[in-house]
């Protein structure tokens, strides 16, 4: 294996899940994993072009003070790389055009939808068509949820999975589309990769707390039409080992946590499709 899978985990300005996200990339077999502060990209020291897998971890970008990830959206859209005419968004667009993978979790997912990276219907980047807003409960909550995987989704990250059990930790996770038409298109194209479900992973649910935020169509995660950009509210990087599971002391669980499969799928896809 001559070529190396290179993953970048972006941090700074309130991101806080970068360490476990990087750990997940490493466990999944990525040979290079760099945690990079946004400022290092903005000052031109690090370029997204040098990586295959971009991770946007959870946190509270700029405190979510203007709504989750809102202020950060402005930074990603308008900030320029010093010493060049390029904007951060230009690098991001090029990264996507090259068919590389992007995973956004929680605050990272909020950033993706507000930047218009997801669902990016028809491949149109930069046009926001859906949002993630305040939970119906009006509260931030940390609780574990069951997630049904859409087997027909083009999503690369959820390939071969039936269901997942992961924690959500958010106050603004309710998925809402701009209108019915957008929702229909997302459904028809099977872009809904994950839905909050009952324990059996069979049926999506609108019932609190199994659906922790009141998301339309129980949507917990969506992908773009190529399946290469994926965002989800639950935290796969929070379940990498069985001791992360809330009931590990009472259930027989495999050593490896369920969340790691998402990262394994990404790394093997890169190895097979982008490196060979």
């Amino acid at each position, binding site marked *: 294996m001559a070529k190396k899978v290179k993953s970048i985990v972006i941090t700074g300005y309130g991101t806080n899940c970068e360490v476990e996200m990087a750990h997940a990339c490493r466990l999944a077999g990525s040979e290079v994993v760099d945690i990079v502060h946004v400022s290092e990209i903005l000052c031109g020291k690090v370029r997204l072009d040098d990586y295959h897998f971009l991770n946007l971890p959870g946190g509270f970008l700029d405190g979510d003070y203007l709504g989750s990830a809102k202020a950060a959206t402005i930074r990603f859209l308008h900030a320029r790389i010093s010493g060049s005419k390029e904007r951060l968004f230009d690098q991001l667009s090029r990264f996507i055009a090259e068919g590389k993978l992007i995973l956004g979790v929680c605050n990272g997912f909020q950033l993706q939808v507000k930047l218009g990276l997801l669902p990016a219907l028809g491949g149109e980047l930069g046009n*926001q068509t859906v949002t993630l807003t305040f939970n119906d409960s009006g509260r931030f909550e940390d609780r574990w949820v069951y997630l049904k995987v859409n087997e027909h989704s083009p999503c690369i990250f959820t390939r071969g999975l039936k269901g997942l059990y992961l924690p959500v930790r958010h106050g603004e996770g309710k998925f809402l589309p701009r209108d019915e038409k957008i929702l229909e298109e997302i459904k028809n194209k099977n872009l809904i990769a994950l839905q909050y479900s009952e324990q059996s992973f069979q049926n999506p649910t609108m019932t609190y707390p199994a659906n922790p935020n009141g998301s339309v169509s129980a949507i917990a995660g969506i992908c773009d039409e190529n399946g290469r950009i994926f965002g989800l509210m639950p935290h796969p990087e929070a379940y990498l080992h069985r001791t992360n599971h809330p009931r590990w002391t009472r259930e027989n669980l495999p050593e490896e946590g369920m969340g790691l499969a998402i990262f394994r799928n990404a790394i093997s896809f890169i190895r097979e499709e982008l490196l060979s």
Partner: protein
Amino acid sequence: MVVRIEVGFKSHVIDAQGEKIARRIRDHLGLPVDSVRTVEVYTLEGDFTNEELEEIARGPLSDPIIQEYRIGQPLACQFDWLIEVGYRPGVTDNVGKTAKEAILLLLARDKDEQLNVYTSRQYVITGTLTKKEAESIASNLLANDLIEHYRIVSFKDWDCKQGLSPYVPRVMEHNEPHTEKIDLNVEDEELISISESRILALNIEEMRAIRTYLKDKHVIEARKKVGLDHRITDVELECIAQTWSEHCKHKIFNAQIRYEDDQKKVMTIDSLFETFIKKATQKVREAKGKDDICLSVFSDNAGVIKFTEDYNLVFKVETHNSPSALDPYGGALTGIVGVNRDPFGTGKGAKLIFNTDVFCFARPDYDQPLPPRILHPRRILEGVREGVEHGGNKSGIPTVNGCIVFDDRYLGKPLVYCGTGGIMPSTIKGEASHKKEIRPGDLIVMTGGRIGKDGIHGATFSSQELHEGSPVTAVQIGDPITQKKMIDFLLVARDRGLYRTLTDNGAGGLSSSVGETARLSGGCEMDLKRAPLKYQGLNPWEILVSESQERMTVAVPPEKISDFLELARKMDVEATVLGQYTDTGMFHVRYGDETVAFLHLDFLHEGLPQMKLSARWSPPRRDETPPPPYPAHMGNALKAMLGRLNICSKEWVVRQYDHEVQGGSVVKPLTGAENDGPSDAAVIRPLLDSFVGVVVANGICPRYGDIDTYHMAACAIDEAVRNAIAVGGSLDHLAGLDNFCWCDPVASEKNPDGEYKLAQLVRANMALYDITTAYGIPCISGKDSMKNDYAIGNIKISIPPTLLFSVIGRIDDVRKAVTMDAKRPGDLVYVLGVTKREMGGSEWYAMHGLIGHSVPHVEPEEAKRLYQALSLAIRRGLIASAHDCSDGGLGCALAEVAMAGGWGLEIDLRQVPQKGIDRDDELLFSESQSRFVVTVSPHHQKDFEDTIAGLPWGLVGEVVNRTCLTVIGLSGEIIMDEDIYALKAAWKAPLNF
């Protein structure tokens, strides 16, 4: 120009925040409202074109999918009442600050551009309310008059085109910064009036000591050389007041105390801290020899212990009581982000890995009239909860453990204990990370936030009771994101070796941070004019003692300064050189060219006269006969106990705290079959590629102090320790933190029982010595807060003396950790430890309106053997579940084990190891210490019983495949057969807002 942009949800979108407010208006205030919608108001001050305003409104300020906006026009069009709430001038407006940054970036404008954004929120209310009721909603729920300004409009007075006029809370300071000189060569009365009028909180002996210092002719001579004279400057006076405050110098803990016990035996204690706390730690460390785990105790911002070969652990618990009484949200938020800076500012700096919080409040359903300036306890609870939520969650630090204590004596001052742990590599660039060193010539650099008037007199204010004139400036709001950015930056700088050491700017601000660290080099010289300000017009003394948040003081070697500043600039963090450390022995402060403070460091730190206090112990004699009647229905009695505020589920609070961020969560605060059982302690794995874990637990039991604070302290320590043992911790690697919150123990005319309260403090310290030395647990850091009283008019409310004991330790392999839920039918149920007739101070007695006198006693030698045996059994994998018995005794512990496990238990009380009990209720609800309920698989029965041979244990029953808790009483009859889901419903009911 000034323009308002209003942003609200589109009509079809649920306004979850508005609905939450509507629920609170109905539930908390009992007022009938139909609906509440919220509107965010951004008031922009600057030059903008119409196109730019559109772009701003569309861009960062609103979300086009769900929100709509109006520029210069109101959104609200139909309502009964509209209430708009905005901050007063100078109060931290995090949303406004973020909006400003986003707008500058969006419009590609320069960072220094004159542009301000102020935010307010409108509550658009539909419902038939009187003006007075609308006023009540504004002042009792939506706005805190101390920090917020509100306007109320009824629909009939509403101008649909104009809306409300812009509210611009710009700080208008026309003050020309100046320094006053005060002649202290005056009579005593005048000295006292100087101290009082300036809120210095210095007593007459302390004022006299300053007067004497300034009469010294060598001092005057030295002062003349720098342009000063025999008069003290206000900068110096404020600096001394802050340095000598109870908060900073712990005068009561260091006082000379004459203690007389109930046998009239007298002893003189020269410093409680030295005699009991420090000496205990010293004794423990000596006894442990090469197994000593301590690295840095009592000398730095937090204690440091060994963790692994390559890493150390750092831990500190603070209180933020007084600010939380005035503004619960801001007070608690600053409490948590403030304590974060303690472990962060220890040695060369630690990465923060967990928070733990303990709160003490009056009942949330308190229904008596409230004395002036006191907020309703439910409002305090909700504000504190939310402040800690934002402080913890936004900082990305998991809140892993905590508890809430309810007692109406916390009405005058709530207690808000915030603790934070950190981890640091044991060496950084070859130097020990836990040591602090500064060399003369190192530069004094302030990083992070800017300085405003916020938090001025915080240190002196918290050293006083809450009174009519308590300063508003003592209240402040923190910004976890400014702090997070600074911490991200400083950790990078640390690992690159760009600074020597750092310390936080907390109580006392620069005066304290620079004044303390200057002792390491032997002096300092700095210029306050260089300090970046939030707004102009601050006097030098205000700059020196301001407690504005999110600031660290860093000692940077001159050869590293350009790299340090460059990294700061790149990472968007403000860093300013204020001066340098010296070895002149002087605390030298300038404002520009003018010297404004010139004090000998020795005088500043050692010149404080020792207090002399008197303590007299006379144990209260309380009647215990007749005991409460034997319950008519034991199941109902248990339900009533489970529904007590001090026992009931705290899930509502716990879920709103992120307890899993950083990915190392092992034993979560909620556990069991349905993820809702109450864990005894937390276990986390801070190094994701290792299975070595950290265990964290707390103990607190103020009720026992009504009988004897000796036993209250002993029990709090025991509770913390047994909680840690229950999840897999071990006495071999456990360290403690003591945190005393007391009512004023200094006798005076207005505090006639001061000698008794001081005796209570002495006794608690005696217990701390006895128990920690017996268990071999070193105290590594601590805190005291001595004036938790409220005195306005003739109303005085004092908290019960309260000791929080927190422990931190290592668990060698987290895969051996144990949780408290019953695991599977057929497992055997054991009770470890002896139950005695110790009903005094119990929840059972409290429920019957009694206190009693048979307070639980800790027998540390026997308990220690039990803890060692249980630790061993857990390490050997013999234990299915372990749960400590605390509030509510065996009865509540058994119920919790069953409820959390989702299985029933069949229990025979005749098998419980006990002494002198002949009543089932007393056996179930006595709060004897050092006890556990443990379940064990029958396969391990023999091994387990061998492990605990010779210790008090009883095989009391079995986990069963039905959902009832069935109890056979001492008579051999079934005294209880309750469905565990009914028990759980009772347990979950009280705190579920």
